[in-house]
């Protein structure tokens, strides 16, 4: 603990020399830095629990070999509840993310107990992470039943069905509120179209059930339509959720960018993860107000293989690639992504969950060789 403080002090003094003048930006800006200039970009790293530290180590190694101008600031989940945040995440960790504007998070196991908020909930509420972006593309060389998946799901992360507002009216009758606000819907729609434009995507589809939930999903659709008018070059369509589910399992190539409220987003994004091979291979990134981006690995912490050098770092690696793209370091992102995909495609070095027998270090070294 003391060494961490010393390291942090030393780094903060050092950063005074290195850090370039960071441009101030309004709330509506989505990228953290305008182009990587000279100087290192500070990023917060939460290695997490279980297999977290091993795969975080892989990421750091690959970034070093790839020469990425990222300087990691590591934070760990504490062992006692911090009263300022009501959870095991310390105030310093949250401050560091707010300051650096980018972060990478490994899998975190929420300790069971009462009197504290779940770690993911804390991060989401404190950092105001309103959009969850999951790019899903089929990994060449890893055969699943679907080979032509290439879509991005953008899910509203703060309201909708997961507001947590439930109560028992009388015995045996429970009500749960689903809340849709204009502000949150506009926010996520804006991000979706900005993302589509920034990454050269042709089409944005809004997923809804407005034929039954006319006012709530109707409001969501209205907001999406408003934003769509500002981007005439991007095709906009609306798809009912049951139609969307069916089309996704029959022909996922039909979709490009999907934007949806919380619950549908949860189900659809996990469905898409299932199409490409599971949560162990899916990258994910959470976008917050003020241009904060927290990339994360959505799989669990797998305590049974922790420390045995058997974990698959692909999800965290691809998430870090998403983080690089957010920072507009596209050439580095492409290099790392190509290296990862090539290694998996070759099939010589694959970890246990992909059907191979390599260790984490072998896999990481193979990727470094491909860089």
């Amino acid at each position, binding site marked *: 603990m003391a060494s961490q403080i010393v390291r942090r002090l030393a780094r903060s003094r050092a950063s005074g020399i290195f850090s370039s003048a960071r441009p101030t930006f309004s709330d509506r800006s989505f990228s953290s830095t305008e182009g990587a200039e000279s100087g290192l970009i500070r990023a917060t790293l939460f290695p997490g629990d279980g297999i977290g530290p091993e795969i975080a180590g892989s990421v750091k190694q690959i970034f070093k070999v790839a020469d990425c101008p990222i300087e990691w600031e590591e934070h760990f989940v504490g062992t006692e509840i911090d009263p300022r945040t009501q959870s095991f995440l310390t105030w310093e960790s949250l401050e560091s993310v707010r300051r650096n504007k980018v972060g990478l998070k490994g899998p975190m196991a929420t300790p069971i107990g009462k009197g504290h908020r779940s770690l993911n909930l804390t991060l989401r509420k404190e950092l105001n992470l309103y959009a969850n972006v999951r790019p899903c593309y089929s990994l060449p060389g890893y055969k*699943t*039943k*679907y080979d032509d998946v290439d879509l991005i799901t953008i899910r509203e992360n703060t309201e909708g*069905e*997961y507001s*947590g507002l*439930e*109560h*028992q009216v009388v*015995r*045996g*009758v*429970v*009500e*749960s*509120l*689903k*809340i*849709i*606000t*204009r*502000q949150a819907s506009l926010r996520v729609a804006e991000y979706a179209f900005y993302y589509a434009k920034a990454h050269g995507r042709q089409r944005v589809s809004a997923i809804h*059930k*407005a*034929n*039954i*939930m*006319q*006012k*709530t999903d*109707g*409001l969501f*659709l209205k907001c999406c339509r408003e934003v769509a008018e500002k981007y005439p070059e991007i095709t906009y369509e*609306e798809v*009912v*959720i*049951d*139609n969307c*589910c*069916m*089309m*996704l*399992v*029959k022909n996922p190539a039909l979709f490009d960018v999907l934007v949806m409220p919380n*619950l*549908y987003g*949860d*189900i*659809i*994004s*996990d*469905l898409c*993860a*299932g*199409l490409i091979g*599971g*949560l162990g291979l899916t990258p994910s990134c959470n976008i917050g107000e003020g241009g904060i981006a927290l990339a994360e690995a959505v799989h669990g912490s797998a305590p049974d293989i922790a420390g045995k050098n058997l974990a698959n770092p692909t999800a965290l690696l691809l998430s870090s690639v998403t983080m690089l793209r957010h920072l507009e370091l596209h050439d580095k992102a492409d290099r790392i992504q190509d290296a990862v995909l090539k290694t998996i495609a070759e099939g010589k070095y694959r970890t246990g969950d992909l059907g191979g027998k390599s260790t984490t270090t072998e896999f990481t070294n193979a990727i470094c060789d491909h860089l």
Partner: protein
Amino acid sequence: MSRRALPIFKNFISSGGGGGSTRSVTYMPRPGDGTPRPVTLIPGDGVGPLVTGAVEQVMEAMHAPVYFEKYDVHGDMKTVPPELIESIRKNKVCLKGGLKTPVGGGVSSLNVLLRKELDLYASLVHCFNLKGLPTRHQHVDIVVIRENTEGEYAGLEHEVVPGVVESLKVITKFCSERIAKYAFEYAYLNNRKKVTAVHKANIMKLADGLFLESCREIASKYPSIQYNEMIVDNCSMQLVSKPEQFDVMVTPNLYGNLVSNVAAGIAGGTGVMPGGNVGADHAIFEQGASAGNVGNEKLLEQKKANPVALLLSSAMMLRHLQFPSFADRLETAVKRVISEGKYRTKDLGGTSTTQEVVDAVIANLE
């Protein structure tokens, strides 16, 4: 005469598998069981009339002891006409094409209204692989039983202040119990081994928690049937990777909608999955998982809607009316047409029109 000989020839040539007709039961009818039963028929909108016309033709060809009372109802009507409700109450059985629900308008869905009026609390979709139809997933045989009256589709919405809208999701013990009871009873009577409850109780602790509690209570009364629970996002992931682990699934309203469409998609598409809505006294049979194709204009113009789903649903209806041999004949004919692969509509990868498929089915009736 030669038309009759052809299927017999086919019987000799094609061996094993789906060659001969499978008899589900030899049953001893009571005197008077053969009098024609009236069934309410709602052609509906869009491709509805096309596919219900198909069913009518096939029923005629089989000389099945049913006759249809047609009612002209459209999706944009404000309420269900009372004579329709009267007729369904009298006949107890109804066959429905699709009713198109206008998106975002002020009209609440007529499908939902019908269900509420007649208290059809269970919606059933049977998703299974058809022989001869290539899909990415094999060994799919899933029945999704979905609560049909409450949950997210209760329709209780209001605008709190401009820009903030609330929608109520209501879960009651009464409805959760009866859907769980129906699901287990279905599994018991149909020799199914496992019931899976789909939920999101880690987030919606009270609402889905209540649903799960009811399911667990009922599960304890059927010790011979395996019971497990699965969170809905995990469930959708498992459905696309390992669908053979599912047997009967019981879900609240919204998840059931999504899960049934995913299951229908992996097993061959909504054009072939039968299903229906059933309540204590009445039953409405319709295409299983409707993915909003009702209003699809192109299908209507080219008359290429897929009648298979409604034909299989009408076979379910014949069983419900206790005419098992007619149901068997119809199902065998339909399955044979699909497995031969010559007459398939566009959603199954072929180019036939509805009428061609119907003619093929009639030709294959024994």
